[in-house]
């Protein structure tokens, strides 16, 4: 190993260690000792990672309150950053909260973290064209049964058992922390971006089933079939038209194809 490699590896380990250490490779002088000098980097590392996570996980911060700092500490301690861009440092935080004691005992923390991260990744995801009603008017009437929609790639549907959306909305508005509520039945939150603005909303149950079909690449006939589980035939058709209009206006649909 070269001496440059050795110095860099020693400094890396010293910065990652729980406490700033003293390294023989670093000079001490009358201004400050080696330990004090190294502690600037040791402290700065944690501050920067905390700041990056605070920017991305505003809903989680709202929910965790005073425990947020300890939560970030526990993540930083076991997750060194492996990406050159600090913007991606939080990618594993939601699954960390899902799997790690004591945070996994409160599943609402992972739920809001997944929502925060979906919002964050939608923000600077690849730009994709959205189609409008005019585009769909080109579909031949006899081809609708086999129509398949391609949805925006950045779109995410997240299943939650708590009112986590209220925490993100409170964070966005700088409002007071809401009361945590557990739903009697799980719900789905849709996260997407229209042009440059990221949106999120709770999906109706029937809409979730139809959207899932669209995301799985099912045909329009299969999507209508899913609605038939919720509505009678006439109501299903008008509901399908309504959902399609809603998706087009929201910019969720990237394109279409027929078999």
């Amino acid at each position, binding site marked *: 190993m070269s001496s440059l490699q050795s110095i860099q590896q020693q400094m890396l380990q010293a910065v990652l260690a729980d406490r700033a250490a003293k390294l023989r*490779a670093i*000079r001490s002088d009358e*201004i400050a000792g080696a330990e004090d000098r190294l502690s600037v980097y040791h402290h700065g590392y944690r501050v920067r990672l905390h700041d990056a996570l605070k920017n991305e996980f505003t809903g989680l911060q709202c929910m965790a309150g005073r425990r947020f700092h300890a939560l970030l500490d526990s993540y930083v301690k076991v997750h060194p950053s492996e990406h*050159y*861009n*600090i*913007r991606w440092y939080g990618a594993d935080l939601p699954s960390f909260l899902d799997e790690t004691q004591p945070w996994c005992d409160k599943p609402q923390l992972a739920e809001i973290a997944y929502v925060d991260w979906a919002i964050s990744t939608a923000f600077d995801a690849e730009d994709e064209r959205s189609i409008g009603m005019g585009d769909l008017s080109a579909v031949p009437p006899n081809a609708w049964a086999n129509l398949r929609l391609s949805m925006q790639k950045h779109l995410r549907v997240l299943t939650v058992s708590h009112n986590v959306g209220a925490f993100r909305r409170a964070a966005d508005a700088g409002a007071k922390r809401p009361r945590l509520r557990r739903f009697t039945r799980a719900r789905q939150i849709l996260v997407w*971006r229209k042009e440059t603005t990221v949106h999120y909303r709770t999906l109706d149950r029937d809409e979730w089933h139809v959207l899932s079909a669209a995301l799985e690449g099912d045909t329009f006939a299969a999507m209508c079939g899913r609605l038939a589980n919720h509505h009678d035939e006439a109501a299903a058709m008008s509901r399908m038209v309504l959902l399609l209009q809603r998706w087009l206006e929201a910019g969720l649909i990237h394109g279409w194809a027929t078999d």
Partner: protein
Amino acid sequence: MIDPAGLASHASPAFLADKVIAMTSAISSRALPYLGYGLGLRVEHYEALLANPGKVQWLEIVSENYMVDGGLPLVWLDRFRERFPLVMHGVSLSIGSTDPLDEDYLARLAALAERVEPAWVSDHLCWTGVQGINLHDLMPLPYTEEALDHVVSRVLRVQDRLKRRILLENVSSYVSFADSQLTEWEFIAAVAERADCLILLDVNNVHVSAQNHSFSSLDYLRGIPPSRVQQFHLAGYEQGEKLIIDTHDAPVSNAVWDLYIEAVRRFGRVSTMIERDDNFPPLSELMSELDHARALAEPLLRDAA
């Protein structure tokens, strides 16, 4: 032609390879433009800057903020690109790391440079991580012959990849190494000369490191070859208990303004900007600081002319 005398003192295979790369590359040695007085572009000032650009002549973007796939960051970037000359300033090149250069990073950087067409691209003379772990900090290097060879070879490869000369910025530091054989200014000057790259001289960082390591900031300036200095940074710092901490979150200090005057005297007309990274004041305050830089430099430059 390769100069055999020049090679004799640096006869390592790595150095020979570097020399060949340097001589066969398509890097332009054309002089870069003088841009005047500019600011570091930050989200906090997007709207104010477009509404009232004042006398801001150019902007420096943080490259990584725009190395994204799409969305609002690139929309803003295109708006500013229409209005201002831009330069790109990165924080993750990690030119001094003993890890291999990150090809994904370089590809994204090259793609961004193609989109922005910046007047130049810069990063820092430091390392930011090793063993695949990123510390997201500007870690100082030991100023050794080994580190010099290592950095020079990597600068040559980066310049070849980007098809342009890059600028490297001196970083503020809090540690120095027992192994160091050169002063910081000898090291940065040698990197610039041997790799044929340019220098982004952060006047604040010279002051911070000079205070932290008890060297003369004037000696530092005297050790930097004027022909290599393409850009100045001006920024603020925080006085810690024992060390000065480079926070870039405060107004430029009087000591740094004094050093800036000396830098203008030595290096002449150099594109200058105020760099603020946190604790953002209203844009008008940064414009006032920029006016102050202009007011200090222009009489000296007129006298010199």
